[in-house]
């Protein structure tokens, strides 16, 4: 449940970054850091695709898998939680790379990107706990 709620929040956060990147929103709301510098950097695009678009897709994917795991009828299986763990692990690595870029390459911080990185970390930890819990349950 925590994973689904955080994934939905992350989806909207990534969507905000995406609409800003596409010029559909004006000045970014950025109380802390230099969001514009990060958004204007070459790392805000991966090829022709805005990096935030990958965030939108990633969070939506995690939300979908998390909702699948919450359905009754045996879908809350180890396979689903394993898939969620794998998904969130990829997101965590990607997020860690982006955070590293902010710190050492772009040398500017975007508060929304940092919040997204925190969300992904919590999602990963929650998925890890879920896998362990299911494994413990089946072993008992």
């Amino acid at each position, binding site marked *: 449940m925590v994973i689904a709620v955080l994934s939905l*929040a992350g989806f909207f956060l990534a*969507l*905000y970054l995406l609409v800003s990147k596409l010029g559909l929103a*004006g000045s970014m709301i950025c109380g802390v850091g230099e969001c514009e510098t990060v958004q*204007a950097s070459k790392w805000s695009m991966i090829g022709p695709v805005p990096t935030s678009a990958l965030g939108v897709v990633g969070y939506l994917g995690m939300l979908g898998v998390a909702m699948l795991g919450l359905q009754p009828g045996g879908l809350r299986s180890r396979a689903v939680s394993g898939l969620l763990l794998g998904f969130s692990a990829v997101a965590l690595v990607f997020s860690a790379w982006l955070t590293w870029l902010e710190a050492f390459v772009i040398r500017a911080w975007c508060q929304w990107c940092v919040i997204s990185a925190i969300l992904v970390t919590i999602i990963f930890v929650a998925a890890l706990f879920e896998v362990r819990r299911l494994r413990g349950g089946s072993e008992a």
Partner: protein
Amino acid sequence: MTKFYWILAMVAVVGVAAVGYTVASGTMRKTATEPVEVEGLDNMETLVAMARGVSKGDPDAPITIAEFADYQCPGCGAFTLTVKPQLDAQYVETGKARFVYYDFPLVSNHPYTFLAARAARCADDQGKFWEYQNTIFRNQSTWVTKQQPQGDFVDYAVMVGADKDTFEACLKSDAHADVVSANLRLAYELGLDGTPTVMISMGRGMARRLMSFDFQSIQKAIEDLMAESAAPSADSASAAGA
């Protein structure tokens, strides 16, 4: 489980409202990066009133040096960074001439030039036009290679001491798009076809377009113009003596 769906619904509502507001908000106007339609520019009087240059020096100076330039044009950068300081020292700061800059953004070849022109006007709002222009030309080779040079333009504004938030709000809007578009139209109406274009005029006399814009050529053109304007008074003096 019902509580969970309530929380999920609340997050969805807040998310949709926040992103929707961001896009729809009036303060989040789309950044103008290319010329805009301005009503009335077919009328020459309206066009001249609308196409405002940025002026430096004594408004009553006898000579006017006008430049039409494009921020992505390397020749314009060279002119601004090497020739203009000499013109400033010799003519503008001595009160002999005033310098007027007009935007001539050649948007078909230069994708960021219109935004750069607007950026310079945003700096002008804070009284930082000339230093910002120098900075933008000095860093021309850097920002022209970027996919999104807005961040660089903001950095340059901070470098020249402009207020970042005010500048950013200006840049991320359509502020000055009308004036820059009018300047572009004026350049076409004058038949200009390249940048930089430098023109000199005396008083309200016809402007002369210079074919060379190195300092020596401009200096000679100005001296010739001053000599020509002095000549009739010499004639009338001799006529009075006769």
